[in-house]
Structures are given as structure tokens and as C-alpha cells.
């Protein structure tokens, strides 16, 4: 993308028509960007607003009266905090294990001289084309004793073939001379992997960790199928049940809580949505510069 910065020596005069097209393009892009972000802003504002304002006004992005009632309620019911804790635990443990397995698996496969490489790569590609599917996997994982444990959410996706191939391509891009020099110094493959290859692979580690982490944080279906104990439910399941809760249930729970006597039903739903979204949005800016690179590596065939 840096190439677009290059100024050419030749200046071509822009016509009036061209300038109008430019303005239209900038405007359309602006509208697209705003419409992407607007639902988030509305829910964010609504979560801090009073229930009264939410029912009276159709739309706003700055509440006239700021209130923390919705958050107080969301936290008081404890489920949302428990869900948050479970999700953080699951995401941290899951991402670490996934990275450990994916990095170690990708490294040998990135070596052109590695014997057995084609065989293993074919094994991987077959799993990308064909899979046992939901029900056989369910039965097999249940037989492994994973039902109602976090392992059922972590182990099945331990190595995503797609992510593994991105990592492998990144390793392949490291200069071969590094290996040669290290062999000369008497290093073995493990030492080269941990002391040479890994320190050079921060961009790919950052972006793939983000992909795995987001996957764990956002997972709903896996938890729904495999988890039974309510104490283990992650944030997405909690959020779903809060959104589906009819307002009367919330009414009964809230009546003794809200000072104005108006149950913050709508605001609570918004607050819970914000609580489940914010962690992702906090990590996102730090990793953004890496993941575009990561996706690009994956997009280039090799």
C-alpha cells in the first residue's frame, strides 16, 4: 500500500468531472463507514441512558442524562460477570494452546527439505475438503469424555488448517541462510525454532492469535452444544439469554432495584451487549496493523 504514496514526476490535470466523481467516492465511503459504526454508537449511548429517554426518543448517540443503572443491574445479576470471567479464561487458555500446537505443527512443514512434508500436507488439505460433520464429531468427542468441559470447545479447533497454512507460509518467508548459519554454529532444529524463527514471527503470531482469540470469544454454537452446567456458560450464551428474556421477567427482577421505578430493561440489554463487545474492540487497534498482513500472506498462493 506504500506504493500509492509514490509521487510521479508527471502531473496530469484533473478535469471537473473527475473532481465530482472524487467527491462522490469520498462521500459514499464516508456513509458506508458511518453506517457500519452507527449501530454500535447507538447501543453504547443507550446503555448509559435512562429507560425513559430510550422509550421516548427513537434515536440518539449522546444521552441527555447519563446513568449507570443498566450496568449496575447487569453486574448485580452476577451472571454477566461470571460469563465474562469464563470467556476470558476460555479465550486465554484456548488461544495459548492453539498457538502452541499450530506453531509447532507448521514449523517442520515449512522446511523444503522436510521428509514426509507432502504426506502430512495432504492429510491437512483433506480435512479442509471433507470432515466428519457435526454429529459424528459430537459422538466421538463425547466418547472422549469432553462433554460439559471447556476441552470440548478448545480441542476440536486446536489447529485450524487455514491458520496453520498462513503460519507455514510466514516461516517459509524467513531467509534460509539463518538456518544454515545456525547449523554451522551447532544449533539443533528446536533451538533454531525457539531462538531464531519464533522471535522473527511476531507479526504472524499476533494476527493468528487474534483470529483464534476472536473465535473463542465469539463462540456460541460450540458452547450451546457441549456445555450443560450454567456455571460454565461463557458471555455469548449469557448475552443471548438476556436478549431473549421477555421484559416481564426483567421487570420482576428489577423492580426493587431501579430508583425511578422504571425497569431498565432495554438499557440492560444494551449494557450487556456493550460488555460483550468492548473486550474485542480493545484488542483490535493493537493487532490491526498485523492482521492485514496476515490475511495478505494467506491470500497469496504459494
Amino acid at each position, binding site marked *: 500500500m506504500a506504493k500509492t504514496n509514490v509521487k510521479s514526476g*508527471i502531473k496530469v490535470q484533473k478535469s471537473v468531472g*473527475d473532481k465530482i466523481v472524487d467527491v462522490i467516492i469520498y462521500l459514499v465511503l464516508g456513509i458506508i463507514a458511518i453506517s457500519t459504526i452507527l449501530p*454500535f454508537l447507538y447501543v453504547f449511548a443507550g446503555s448509559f441512558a435512562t429507560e425513559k429517554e430510550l422509550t421516548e426518543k427513537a434515536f440518539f448517540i449522546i444521552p441527555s442524562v447519563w446513568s449507570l443503572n443498566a450496568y449496575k443491574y447487569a453486574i448485580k445479576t452476577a451472571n454477566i460477570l461470571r460469563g465474562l470471567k469464563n470467556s476470558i479464561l476460555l479465550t486465554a487458555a484456548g488461544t495459548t494452546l492453539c498457538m502452541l500446537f499450530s506453531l509447532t*505443527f507448521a514449523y517442520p512443514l515449512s522446511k523444503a527439505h522436510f521428509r514426509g512434508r507432502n504426506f*502430512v500436507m495432504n492429510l491437512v488439505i483433506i480435512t479442509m475438503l471433507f*470432515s*466428519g460433520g457435526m*454429529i459424528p464429531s459430537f459422538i466421538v468427542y463425547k466418547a472422549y469424555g469432553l462433554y460439559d468441559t471447556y476441552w470440548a470447545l478448545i480441542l476440536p479447533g486446536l489447529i485450524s488448517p487455514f491458520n496453520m497454512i498462513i503460519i507455514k507460509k510466514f516461516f517459509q518467508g524467513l531467509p534460509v541462510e539463518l538456518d544454515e548459519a545456525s547449523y554451522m554454529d551447532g544449533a539443533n532444529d528446536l533451538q533454531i525454532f525457539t531462538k531464531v524463527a519464533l522471535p522473527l514471527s511476531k507479526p504472524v503470531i499476533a494476527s493468528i492469535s487474534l483470529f483464534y482469540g476472536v473465535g473463542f470469544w465469539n463462540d456460541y454454537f460450540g458452547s450451546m452444544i457441549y456445555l450443560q452446567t450454567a456455571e460454565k456458560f461463557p458471555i455469548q450464551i449469557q448475552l443471548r439469554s438476556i436478549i431473549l428474556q421477555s421484559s416481564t421477567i426483567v421487570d420482576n427482577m428489577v423492580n426493587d432495584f431501579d430508583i425511578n421505578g422504571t425497569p431498565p430493561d432495554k438499557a440492560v440489554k444494551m449494557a450487556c451487549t456493550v460488555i460483550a463487545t468492548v473486550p474485542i474492540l480493545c484488542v483490535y487497534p493493537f493487532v490491526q496493523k498485523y492482521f492485514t498482513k496476515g490475511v495478505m500472506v494467506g491470500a497469496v498462493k504459494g
Partner: protein
Amino acid sequence: MAKAKKQLIKMADGTYYEANRTSTGKYFKQHIWLYLLLLPGLIYMILFRYVPMGGLVIAFKDYSPFKGLWGSDWVGFANFTKFFSNNDFSKLLINTLGISLLQLVLYFPAPIILSLFLNEVRHNAYKRVVQTLVYIPHFVSWVIIASLTYQLFNVTDGVFNVLYKAMTGSTFDILSKASTFWGLIVGQDIWRETGYGTIVFLAALSGVDQELYEAAKVDGAGRWRLMWHITLPAIRGTIIMMLILRVGGILNTGYEQIFLMRNDLNIARAEVFDTYIYTKGIKNGMYSFSSAVGMFKSVVGMIMVMLADRVAKWFGESGLY
């Protein structure tokens, strides 16, 4: 390539100029760590990817949890014939293909168009801000998107309906109508994935030599001709690759999204293969029957990917693998 391969092996055992290939035993000994690094992943692949594939035998059995995977009785293709002769089959096929084709027509071109727009922007800070914002929804879970959709479109107090009512006097219930379900799903897809989908196309465009544009401009080419003769050919390969992936996944409508958006009122248009497998298999315990449905889906999916890949190669593109 072959030369470099030999050279590296030579490096490893120190005999630098030897031309012979190291024997397998010797190679294995030298690179034992590579095999040890590979081992955990390989065990994982077998236990968690290949064993479930073997579990597909239950599609040909009448699986009962008491008799176990191997002890259950063989029934041949009975589960498959039961599925194909079932009324549900045509309904599932129509819904799945309906959603997929709508995605192909409406969603697929969206990232391409957005990339072409972004490619025209010379103001880099503006471009970066737009990119940062449009990537965000991709990282947000379907539960949150379902929740946002509910909060914006529900009939009682959703923003959309409040405004719609102010203008027309009536409400429009997108969330619980069978006729709007496909549109709702594809709309969510467009909102969520268009921005993120531009990354691969912008990556392809970043490789275009800017001098090509300059040269064409000097020759008097306008904006449209530049786009037609330089930009579009540059992303042609990427477009075809993305198209292969989409056609290959034509039966994958994704269950999370549809599962979250469907309800009793729109179920007629909302039952697709994935949700059906879940309902019949995990909820109703018809393991063998739903495994057969899943297997049908996997096999068709695999054939579709291979066919699409073959077609792409036929047109002179590099294909997937």
C-alpha cells in the same frame, strides 16, 4: 528448488560439498526435533479430524448409544433414502440454495466494489480511517449482531420501526416474517463482511505497479479506462479464487447466524441443512439420520470445490491447490 533442498541437508550434517542424498535414517536422526515438533499436531489431526470421519459409519447404521458405534446394526443406505424421499429435503435445498444464491448475487460483489472505491482514494489518512471502521463488524460475534439487529428492528421500540411508523403509520416486522428472512440474513452478511472482504482485493491491488497508471494517464486514459484495463485485471485472479470458495461452500450457510435469527414465525424459510442436522441430531437424538444428512452435505461440498477448482484451471487461473 531441488538443489536448495539437497544443499540444506548437506549443511545439516556438515559435509558441505557431498552430492549424495542423505539416507532416510540419517536424515531422521539429524532432524529428530522437527519430527518431535510435528508429532503433537499429527496426533491431534488423527484424534480430532480423522476419527470423526470414521464416525461417519453411523450414517450407514442404526446407531444406538447402548450398542455403541461398532455394535449398532448396519442398515446400508436406509438413512439416505429416508432423507431423499422426505418432504423436508426439497424445503432444505430451496432454503439453502436460496440464501446462498442471494449471497452470491448481492454479497459477493460488495467487497469488490468497495475495494475499487477505496483504491480511488488518494488521501491516505481518510482511507485508513474508513478501513479501520469497516473491518470492525467482522470481529463481533453473531450473538452481538443478532442483538444489535433486534434492538434496531424490533416492532415495539426498534429505531427502524419507530421511524418507519412516523413516516408510514404502520410497522414493518422484518424479524418475524418468512418472506423477509433471506434478505435479513444476506443484509447482515453484507453489513458484517463487506469491509473485511476488501482486504484480499486491496492486497492484490497493492502489488500493481503505479507506473502502469501513470503511463496510461499520459496516453490519455480516463478513470474508467484505468479501472477497466489495469485495476480489474489485477484482481481478476483473486475474484476467481473467491468465487471458487463461495461456490464450493454453497451448502454452507453457517448455522450460528441462521440459528440466532430464526424463530417460530419465519421457520418456513429458515430451515437449512446445518440447522436441520442440529435439530434432528442433537435435539431429537436421530444420530444416524442426521449423520447421513451431514455426509450428503460434506460430499456435495467437496465435489463442488473440486469442480469449481477444475473450472478455474480451465480458464487459465491458478486454482486453489
